[in-house]
């Protein structure tokens, strides 16, 4: 985000006065940040643009609650808001589809086989296939577990950053990550048990 050239304070004042141009500028400025978060934590049945819009609607409705603090840019507040919105959407996704080996694309299945079996060499596939494989496993976790693993492993955030983004204490983040990894291993074992024999 080009924060240097963009005057957030002035823009927020404009949005509070219901200035349409300021609102448009704010949305366009924050869109890349919001979309990056939304894409990482998107429920299966929701379009990314819809969820991004939901984040912005929350942003407008809670703008009065935002207080500027030295050393904490506005973007941090937005990131937290976006993460919380995604978590709520993941929680609302009551029924998660159950996938089987036969439902997976060839490249995804290759990665999954590598993860749950004794194959020594990682498959040479696209990064997108690797990401899809992780998504398959992450979707089987609880929303909070999925969120913490995504932030730690895929986005390589520190525990402190995860704590700031989620509003959870540092201890809670550690405990959730530990439990999530344990569940992930169980899920991996379940896939291994159902693996097709070749």
């Amino acid at each position, binding site marked *: 985000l080009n924060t240097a050239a963009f005057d957030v304070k002035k823009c927020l004042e404009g949005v509070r006065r*219901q200035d*349409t141009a300021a*609102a*448009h500028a704010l*949305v*366009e400025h924050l*869109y*890349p940040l919001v*979309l*990056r978060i939304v*894409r990482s934590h998107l429920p299966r049945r929701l379009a990314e*643009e819809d969820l*991004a*819009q939901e984040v*912005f*609607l929350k942003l*407008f*409705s809670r703008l009065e609650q935002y207080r500027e603090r030295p050393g904490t840019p506005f973007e941090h507040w937005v990131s937290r808001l976006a993460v919380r919105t995604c978590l709520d959407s993941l929680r609302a996704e009551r029924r998660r589809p159950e996938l089987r080996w036969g439902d997976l694309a060839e490249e995804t299945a290759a*990665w999954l086989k*590598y*993860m*749950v079996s004794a194959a020594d060499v*990682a498959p040479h*596939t*696209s*990064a*997108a296939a*690797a*990401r899809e*494989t*992780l998504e398959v496993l992450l979707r089987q976790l609880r929303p909070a577990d999925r969120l913490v693993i995504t932030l730690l*492993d*895929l986005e*390589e955030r520190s525990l402190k950053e995860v704590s700031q983004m989620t509003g959870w204490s540092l201890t809670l983040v550690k405990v959730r990550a530990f439990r999530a*990894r344990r569940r*992930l*291993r169980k899920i*991996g*074992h379940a896939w291994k048990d159902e693996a097709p024999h070749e």
Partner: protein
Amino acid sequence: MNEFDHRWQTCAARARQDVAGPVPVPVGFATRTWARWTGRSHASLTAVWTALSFRALILATLVLVVLATAEFSTASADNALTPHLEDVVANVWGTL
């Protein structure tokens, strides 16, 4: 770190290479979002007004019912105690 965790991290490292390019804002996204927000805030004001009006209507109906009941009971009591005016007049007229 056990075998699964190690392989998970290998897969995550590969997945992180799936970097999306710059994200352009979809055409009209800002306009749609702002319009939805302003529409929603107007709608919420209307909803508040409707809810308050409905409550005021219920309250007014209750007050009217209470007043009507009180009036009816007072009127009944008055009728029992007060003699009819025409009878009094007729009686007085008859004695003259």
